[in-house]
């Protein structure tokens, strides 16, 4: 019973916190890019790419959340034990917090990248690569969460 509750809590933690990071990151990037577009709407394609870059954290969080739901019996299957529930919760904290804070940071990087591209479109690829440098940390958090989540159903705790 507690196992189920903890697993759902874990799914929420992963989805919500990583989502907050992306929402804030994409939000500030979108604000900046709209400022650029008000001057020159032909840059829309490039701006869209840069704006969407901080969006992956939310996606990672969502995937961890979804995998937890699949593995915890909400969408069919056996119910998790309390220990497994705690394991889910522990795993979800990684992408939750890692995704949130890296989302903030990547949002800031995206804002700078957008202003840089607005000045000279040749800077686009450099801006893009620099922004993805932040992403590795969200990615590492995601991998940790993922590896735990997929192995939890086999855990005897």
């Amino acid at each position, binding site marked *: 019973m507690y196992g189920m509750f903890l697993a759902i809590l874990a799914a929420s933690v992963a989805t919500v916190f990583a989502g907050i990071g992306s929402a804030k990151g994409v939000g500030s990037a979108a604000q900046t890019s709209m400022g650029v577009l008000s001057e020159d709407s032909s840059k829309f394609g490039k701006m869209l790419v840069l704006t969407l870059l901080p969006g992956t954290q939310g996606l990672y969080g969502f995937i961890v959340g979804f995998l937890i739901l699949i593995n915890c019996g909400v969408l069919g299957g056996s119910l998790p034990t309390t220990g497994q529930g705690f394991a889910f919760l522990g795993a979800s904290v990684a992408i939750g917090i890692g995704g949130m804070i890296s989302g903030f940071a990547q949002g800031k990087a995206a804002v700078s990248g957008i202003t840089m591209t607005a000045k000279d479109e040749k800077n686009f690829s450099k801006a893009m690569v620099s922004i*993805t440098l932040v992403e*590795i940390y969200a990615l590492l958090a995601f991998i940790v969460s993922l590896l735990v989540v997929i192995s939890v159903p086999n855990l005897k705790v």
Partner: protein
Amino acid sequence: MKTVRIIALRKDRKRLLEHLQDSALVQVTKSSETAAEGFERFDTSAQLKQFERNAELTEQALKILARVAPEKKGMLDSFKGRREVDPDEIGRIAADSAKIIGICQKIVKLNKQRADYAAEQVRIRTSLAQLEPWKKLDIPLNTKDTPTTAVLIGTLPKMFDGTLLSEALAKECPELVFEYEILYTSANMTCLVLFTPKKQREEAERALRTIGFSQPLNPTSRTPAVKMQRQQQKSEETVQKDEEARKEIAALAEYRQAICETQDYFVLRSEKYKVLADLDQTKHVFVLNGYVPEEDCAKLETLCGKAAPCVVEFGEADEDAPVKLKNSRFAEPAQSIVTMYSTPSHEDIDPTPILAFFFYFFFGMMFSDAGYGLLMIIATAIAIKVFKPDKRMYNNLKLFQYCGVATVFWGLVFGSIFGDAPAMFYKMFTGNEITMKALLPWPTLDTQKDALMIMILSIALGMVHIIVGMGCKFYVCLKRKEYAKAFFDTGLWILLLIGAAVLAVGMATNAVVLYIGTGIAVAAAIGLVLTQGREKKGFFGKLLGGVASLYDITSYISDLLSYSRLLALGLTTGVMAQVFNMLSNLFGTSPVGILFMAVIFIVGHAITIGLNALGSYVHTMRLQYVEMFSKFYEGGGRPFQPFSTKSKYFRTKGSKEE
């Protein structure tokens, strides 16, 4: 790349230059800042400025037209190639250019008038807002005193009603006799008219001034109501004039095509005049210096020979000659990815073929869905067939087509066709559970269940990618005869990485392999300690430098971990597709349910494709730029920019595309 010098008669100049521009074989350069002795240069800056001004004007006019009368453009029109025109038509465009420039000027002028009308509107609105409080006043704002009565019209900066006003004035000047009318009050303004015997005018003024009385800003000789009516009338007139100007501009939109082509015409001419300024000329002869790619030398010679009697000399190119990339049909689409980073210099090798392979391969692994890949292949094939795009767009489409092929491959490996759509449909219509693994006849990897396996695979592929990058470095160093750099700085690291890889394989399989791997890695590490400090002074300096260099292993580890994104993005595509499949499955198999299913299925997969194609593109690019290019690629070369037709809207028949 070769240098080329063409010497010909001045009377053939126009014809020769036109041929060169159409063939796009030569990049023209100045031989030196000033003309050689005995030669002179043309100063074409005046004409150049004129052409550029004209081109600028047409651009302005086009922008105005786009705003006033937007062109109806299909979403797919951007794939279309440029219109082909023959030399006769260019002659016609040239003849019409004066007329078209006139039209552009008219458009710009009309647009300026519209801006003036807009300013006028603002002015009228302010004036109306100022008059609004005085609406009830039935005498002009600048009414003068009558022989016996003084008239004071103005505002007080506070809310007053009759009693308050009387009290305030009585306090200031008890003997004042007055009559008043309050026309308007708000929290911080009161408009009023005050009548008082003429002899008391000064007292009244003083009393009023102490409570903050001020006269209206621009008094007029008509009553406010009349004035307002006039302003409104004027406003309507301006709106009408503005509308007329707008219609007039919109009527000129029929010239849009002609304006575009005229712009191209002036761009072409300014290109030609730029080259003209770089030629060394005498009274009868001119000399053109430039660069030509080695494989085009023969072509250039025959072309010049056909065009006019001339001498063509070739020479060896120097260090700062421009670079033209030449690649197979497989690698060419990825050329734009390389040049986006930097054009290779003469010191570099052209990384395009290697990059192309890994770009397609990694993109496919991240996007990893056979259905999506098939869509990409079909969509790009149709676009190429239908729109006949020009070279750049063609290459971009081809890039995604090749990526699509890799996507199909990885989709089949991961057992993903529109996510788990086949299994979902199977379950929906038969009611039996089935996994993709069971459905597909070949062995597949499940991104969710075999995630660890795929992660190891990702990092192994990353190892290959990095080692290939370092192999390039090794090759470049050998080519430059920097043997220490090649063997010690690069070779030993390659060895260490290979040792580590063998060691990892050994850990999973058997002890002998493990020992071999450890042996290689340790030997390479010792080699590094011994060689990496070679530029430091003193024994301890050398030793410390060598040991410190081992710290670089952290950067290799972080590079390798970076490849885990191959798993992460592959999984993201799969899971998102699966989620939408699940959602579309919720409504059952009734006709309405199937309708819902179709809508959710299409929209959901469109979202998945959009988000994940973008992610895959960005992240493959990053893997190439950050992880591989950092190992060997320096760039910084000058791209080859031949003298050609850089037109936007048409291209001359028979001209080569650049």
